[in-house]
């Protein structure tokens, strides 16, 4: 069969090569400027990078094929069947290619940002990180359904009552009640320290943090946290620490906590309060879930949504009107405005409990 140069094939191969290389280059670009983690969790990033390598290879082969066609070297062993231009009218191909080119151009040209308080309010902030653990201890099917009648609009009443029923609405540091609780906490810390040094650490653990075998890693971690004078919620085990504090909340009431994150508010948490938290990402930012603690602070209005800060305060509990569940409340006595964390998201700690 006489062979003529197929210009449509060349054009298609080149356009495809450019698009595929463009996607691969975008991934490399994100990696180079350190922004890949804004989209993909570090443990999954390797797959995306491998995909970039694969796309480069395919793009290179397509380019090579275009060159061969240009030089009139056709694939010999499969003649007409192997490589020829995709069929169909040109406008459909244009539509398909622009479905890649336009988003890619937007990806490149628009700034990389993080999701913040606006997204937290869409996703609903997670104040009860231990709910998946607690549910075992009672809340079976039928009663749980009753709680689903969430009415964010009807809630300020209830949360207002809850807040009013708490005695200390003034500045926490000057409140005798909270001083007392801090003192008891200190003595508790001392006793915990001495307990740890003695042989009976295990029985102390069981007494302070009763648990079953499944909860053992959390109980041990709680015991570790319990011995710290100020419990710092660290980035590496952010979710695990919040879960532990929430699960053994009664044991940690009155203790000093230090927490960093972004500020978020909605109408369900009540006046004079905001939530300080972080987004936890499993695989990619699309599955991000906001975790946080309600903070009560005198100069609450000083801080805008999405401001980042470190807050140190005393742990209390309150009833979250939207779910009717008991949640943590941090009575702040010190706050520092900070720069947003370099990696805005936190990830599950896979070393936890090992």
């Amino acid at each position: 069969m006489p062979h003529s140069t197929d210009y449509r094939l060349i054009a298609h191969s080149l356009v495809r090569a450019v698009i595929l290389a463009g996607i691969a280059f975008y991934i490399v670009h994100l990696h180079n400027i350190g922004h890949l983690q804004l989209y993909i969790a570090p443990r999954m990033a390797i797959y995306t990078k491998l995909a970039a390598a694969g796309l480069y290879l395919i793009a290179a082969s397509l380019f090579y094929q275009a060159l061969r066609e240009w030089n009139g070297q056709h694939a010999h062993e499969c003649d007409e069947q192997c490589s020829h231009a995709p069929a169909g009218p040109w406008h459909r191909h244009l539509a398909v290619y622009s479905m890649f080119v336009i988003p890619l151009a937007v990806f490149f040209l628009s700034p990389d940002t993080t999701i913040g308080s606006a997204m937290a309010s869409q996703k609903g902030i997670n104040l009860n990180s231990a709910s998946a653990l607690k549910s075992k201890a009672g809340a079976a099917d039928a009663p749980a359904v009753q709680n689903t009648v969430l009415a964010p609009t009807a809630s300020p009443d209830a949360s207002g009552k809850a807040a009013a029923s708490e005695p200390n609405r003034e500045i926490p540091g000057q409140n005798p009640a909270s001083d007392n609780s801090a003192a008891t906490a200190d003595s508790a810390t001392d006793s915990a320290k001495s307990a740890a040094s003695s042989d009976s650490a295990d029985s102390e653990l069981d007494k302070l943090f009763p648990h079953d075998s499944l909860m053992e890693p959390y109980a041990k971690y709680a015991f570790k946290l319990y011995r710290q004078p100020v419990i710092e919620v660290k980035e590496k085990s952010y979710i695990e620490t919040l879960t532990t504090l929430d699960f053994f909340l009664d044991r940690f009431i009155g203790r000093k906590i230090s927490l960093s994150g972004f500020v978020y508010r909605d109408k369900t948490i009540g006046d004079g309060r905001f939530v300080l938290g972080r987004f936890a990402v499993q695989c990619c930012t699309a599955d991000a879930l906001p975790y946080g603690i309600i903070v009560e602070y005198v100069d609450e209005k000083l801080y805008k949504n999405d401001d980042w800060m470190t807050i140190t305060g005393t742990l209390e509990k309150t009833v979250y009107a939207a779910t009717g569940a008991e949640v943590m409340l941090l009575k702040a006595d010190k706050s520092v405005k900070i720069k947003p964390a370099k990696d805005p998201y936190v990830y599950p700690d896979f070393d936890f409990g090992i």
Partner: protein
Amino acid sequence: MSSLVYRWTLNSATIGCLILLYLIFTGQGIGSLARITHVDRSQWQAIKTIFVSIFLEALPFMLLGVLVSALLNLFVSEAALTRWLPRNPVLGVLCACLLGILLPVCECGMIPIVRRLLRKGMPVYIGIAYILAAPIVNPVTYFATYAAFRTMTDMALYRTLMGFAVAVAVGITLYLFQRANPIRTSAPGPATGVVPSGHQPHHTHTHAHTHSHDASGGSSRLLSLATHDADEFFEMGKFLMLGALLTALIQTFVSRGELLELSGGVLGSHLLMMGFAYLISLCSTSDAFVAASFTGLFPKGALLAFLVYGPMIDFKNTLMLLSVFKSRFVVRLIVLVTLFVLVFSWLAGYWTSRHG
């Protein structure tokens, strides 16, 4: 040309109806559409962030699927495939479901592979059983679920069993009742005539044979592998792009709080969780943590419905399914899966409330 116009009017009418339905169910007026059209900066940023993250996350898995599909095309002949597949339909469905253990690919990678196998003559019910079961019945998903529900260790087991059961049930139902060939053969628009698959006229079975019996030209073969990859990539990729964009829009504009207000009763909570799973279109490895965040709000059965339904059918993969199957079949499949998940999750919820 007219059929192209027809298709797009049909699609946009469907989307319009869905938006209206959403407004009706959430009790909002048309006025709130104005709120939606006014998109502020943080929302644009959220859309971009989620769009890019879904695309980058799905990309490697889709590429893997495309690669496996191209390899299948080059090296597995029709005859070999028919030899390997069990004759007995029940056995075939069971095998397809168990294959998920060996090939843990999420649904983005699954569809190109299954499409290739279907074109090579694999029965539809086996292909569907594999698409439905594989994202759930695999060790990666099992351990992710286990990690998300640390103290409800039976959740992971229930999820695996239920995924298996639903896939088998749907597969067998399709075997019994699906007579017509549901595979999209010719692309709408001007017909290409001679060859049945309008998208890629060169991907016929005879072609596959030429390849697999050809021993010469290693570099040419690699080259044709790359060409096949590119063909499939662009065919599936456009659906991934569209799916990722629409999912990003949904995640940005539909709030969980508003969705939760819809629920009522046990059946309502099951349907709601399934609807939620459909809309957010997460991968089967990361959705367990999202499900865990609903514990206490919803009964176990509803969480299971979320965990099983999401990986089987969601917004993103409906678009990808539409690239392989006729739309009537996709609708039928969605209805079937919805019914089976609903029934099985209700039974599971009943069972766990008695024994759990």
